[in-house]
């Protein structure tokens, strides 16, 4: 193993009185993938902003060095010149432009004062061909799914022949097969000598690909571990400072009568569009968690949104809650029927960030506190305070703005906002996306509580360990149709993936084998 060529030593970064980084030391060797792990707020994002030149050299303490010489980046440009490319969590692509334009944004090939379009498209195609990614570079970026956009973003970063590639949660929005493709690209890069900083909440991915793992906690680098010589529990212990024994603490409850019954749903995006969900039927009983797996774009979110009356045009089929028809056309109707939806993108669909926790918690039912036109604050407080306490939302008080909360606590507010309706059926769409380990466990505990109270839970998850760890039964969607149903005891990652890829379909076979292979070298969380 070569010696480090990039070092960050004793980095301290303060925002006013808040210390975001409190002495971080971190180094990179050529041709290694170095994972950065830590709970939300541990300082990962701040660290990569320091490395990437977002924070100018004189705004933090400590030393960055490249090839043994101190490096003082005054801007992102400086860092890029030194060969450091950062792909941030939020995609920075211009929707109205083509793939090629996005790749060359700000650095377009020119002929004189004009853009040389032919060269731009040619060079872009060559780039994607080099990384074996099949994308039409003349297609508008808006035509691409999230996963492909992410790949475009990475190709853009790699275009400058960077020596260091920093990826912040690159797989948060990717389905499993896209993750596999991404990891393959990273392995190629490793062979060609690029050093990669890889930030992810998904420890199975980290262990699948990383050579070394540095754990941050409370702004400090607490450990740098050799991936082969450590284990998931050890990393988690460093992250949280204590051991989480039961990562998926599902306590199955005796299932009661059917609360949600879905019969033969055919749903299209709109009145004219093609059918997206085909003949979907299932039922969920009281006290039961039914997991729904599938690849990105398989129709999981669409199914949840449709049940909740927020998406799609139904061609056929029926929905029943407690045996009563619940064909909701609006979220309001779905709520009245006894359903709530906790959506995957809490900032977009869940919260009014500029308003207080109390405002958000009571948003769906604020009319109930206004018997005579005016809102009775006392009633409102009485209703939201127990939720605030039982969900253990970490905030000064109910008047704290939602924006000021961490991801995990925002998610708790979104959950509380649904639970205040006292639903029969809870639809959870990726309820733990992007939140830290401790908050995840709290969400899982909440799922247990809900089933103990006799509610029916539908859990949509892209993370197999979570899906398998928390569901009593697992259904798998593939291209809008149910292709698999497994009991908790008989579910295996291989079976679920096979169903998610559409069993027996063309070209699924070899991909499936590849995925199974990739997974077998991946220690899965819930086995530990």
């Amino acid at each position: 193993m070569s010696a480090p060529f990039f070092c960050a030593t004793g980095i301290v970064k303060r925002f006013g009185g808040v210390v975001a980084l409190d002495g971080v030391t971190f180094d990179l060797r050529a041709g290694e993938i170095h994972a950065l792990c830590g709970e939300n707020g541990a300082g990962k994002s701040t660290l990569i902003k320091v490395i990437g030149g977002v924070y100018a050299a004189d705004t933090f303490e400590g030393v960055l060095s490249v090839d043994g010489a101190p490096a003082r980046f005054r801007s992102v440009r400086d860092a890029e010149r030194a060969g450091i490319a950062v792909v941030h969590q939020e995609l920075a692509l211009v929707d109205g432009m083509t793939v090629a334009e996005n790749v060359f944004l700000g650095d377009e090939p020119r002929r004189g004062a004009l853009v040389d379009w032919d060269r731009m498209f040619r060079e872009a195609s060559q780039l994607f061909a080099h990384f074996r990614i099949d994308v039409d570079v003349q297609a508008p970026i808006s035509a691409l799914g999230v996963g492909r956009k992410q790949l475009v973003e990475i190709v853009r970063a790699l275009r400058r022949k960077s020596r260091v590639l920093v990826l912040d949660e690159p797989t948060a929005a990717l389905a499993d097969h896209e993750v596999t493709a991404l990891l393959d690209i990273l392995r190629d890069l490793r062979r060609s000598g690029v050093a990669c900083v890889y930030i992810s909440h998904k420890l199975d991915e980290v262990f699948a690909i990383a050579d070394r793992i540095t754990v941050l906690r409370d702004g400090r680098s607490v450990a740098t571990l050799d991936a082969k010589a450590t284990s998931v529990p050890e990393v988690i212990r460093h992250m949280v400072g204590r051991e989480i024994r039961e990562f998926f603490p599902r306590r199955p409850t005796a299932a009661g009568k059917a609360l949600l019954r879905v019969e033969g749903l055919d749903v299209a995006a709109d009145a004219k569009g093609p059918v997206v969900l085909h003949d979907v039927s299932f039922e969920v009983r009281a006290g039961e968690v039914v997991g729904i797996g599938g690849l990105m774009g398989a129709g999981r979110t669409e199914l949840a949104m449709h049940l909740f009356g927020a998406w799609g045009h139904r061609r056929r089929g029926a929905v029943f809650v407690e045996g009563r028809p619940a064909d909701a056309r609006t979220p309001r109707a779905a709520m009245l029927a006894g359903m709530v939806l906790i959506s995957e993108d809490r900032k977009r669909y869940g919260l009014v960030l500029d308003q207080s926790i109390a405002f958000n918690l009571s948003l769906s039912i604020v009319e109930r506190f206004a018997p005579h036109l005016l809102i009775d604050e006392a009633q409102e407080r009485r209703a939201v305070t127990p939720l605030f306490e039982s969900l253990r939302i970490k905030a000064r008080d109910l008047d704290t703005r939602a924006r000021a909360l961490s991801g995990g606590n925002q998610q708790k507010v979104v959950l509380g906002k649904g639970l205040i309706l006292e639903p029969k059926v809870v639809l959870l769409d990726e309820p733990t996306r992007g939140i830290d380990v401790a908050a995840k466990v709290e969400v899982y505990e909440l799922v247990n509580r809900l089933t103990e109270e006799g509610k029916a839970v539908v859990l949509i998850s892209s993370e197999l360990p979570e899906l398998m760890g928390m569901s009593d039964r697992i259904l798998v969607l593939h291209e809008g149709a149910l292709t698999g149903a497994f009991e908790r005891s008989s579910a295996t990652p291989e079976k679920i993936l096979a169903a998610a890829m559409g069993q027996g379909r063309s070209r699924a076979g070899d991909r499936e084998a590849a995925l199974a292979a990739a997974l077998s070298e991946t220690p899965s969380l819930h086995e530990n």
Partner: protein
Amino acid sequence: MPSRLSARDFSIVIALVVIAAFFALRSPAFLGPRNLTMLVIELSITAVLALGMLLVIIPGEIDLSVGSGVGLLGGIASVLVFERQWPAPPAMAAVAIVGVLVWLAMGALIVKQRVPSFIITLGGLLVFKGLHWLVIRNATVPVAPGGTTNLFALLTTYYLPPAYGLVLVTAVVAALVIAQIRTRHRREALGVRVDEREMAQLKLLTVGQGMLLFVLVANRYRGLPLTAVILGTVAWAVTVLLRDTPFGRHLYAIGGNQEAAILSGIAVDRTVITAFGAMGAIVALTGLLQTAYAGSSTTTVGSLMELDAVAACVIGGTSLKGGRGTVLGVMFGALIMATLLNGMTLLAVSPELKFIARGVVLALAVWMDVRMGRT
């Protein structure tokens, strides 16, 4: 909605004091009872319209048609009263109904047909202007037949007798103080975060003192203008609507995050259409006030008032993206715009310079807002 005084609230007050001091130094008449009364009447008209605009901007929409609407609805009322010899009250009621219906229709177009409000109301601006000129046939139509007066004209020419005004304002200030103390106690008991005590007192003191001081000054002229009472009523109503009703909460939620509002079961379409309906009522009221203030409906009545209303909102800290804005802020914003216009008129500043000065103040205010918002 806990409202806190922030640095930017002070910046508005400071800007206001600077502007007023400048005019007072340049023209002693600026602080005279007559001019201050006129200033408050002008403020009231601008502020009433701006408060309507607030209802539309909070859910993230905009209404550019209100200036033309003011002209049109005031013109219709004038024609009904002066040419058709209607008594004033039914003419005013008719105009209010027309305003609400037309604005509900615009709201429905915006929401149901998904045409941006900017476009629909820009169309409204032109259509209403044309209709206004048609209705009054490009003539000057007085608000009351010659030599007589009516309720319409009295909207801006009636003054409460000095004793009544004093009693009314004292009662209002007392009511505000009592309401504040009671709300404060109730909220503290509930654990709701409240303003710092000093801040709350300062805010109340400023508003209460301003009101009392004004009535004393106005009594040296003709007394408390009815227009000011109307503004007070509208301001109170909009405050309650935004702060204490589910409708108000929903407006903030829609402006703050429309998708979240939909998934929270809020009837977004109906709420936004209702906001436009309320805007229609306020446009009708402003149309009556502005036309009464001008004495008659002419082609220029209401011209560019939409910009003053938007400016007052923005100066007062309302976010054009929606989700943020308060009544008190808008009142200060309107006060700045009205003071500026009144002072410049008093100094006989040329119309060209007036436009330029108003534009610069608007840009400066927003720039300051952005600067402070970043820190």
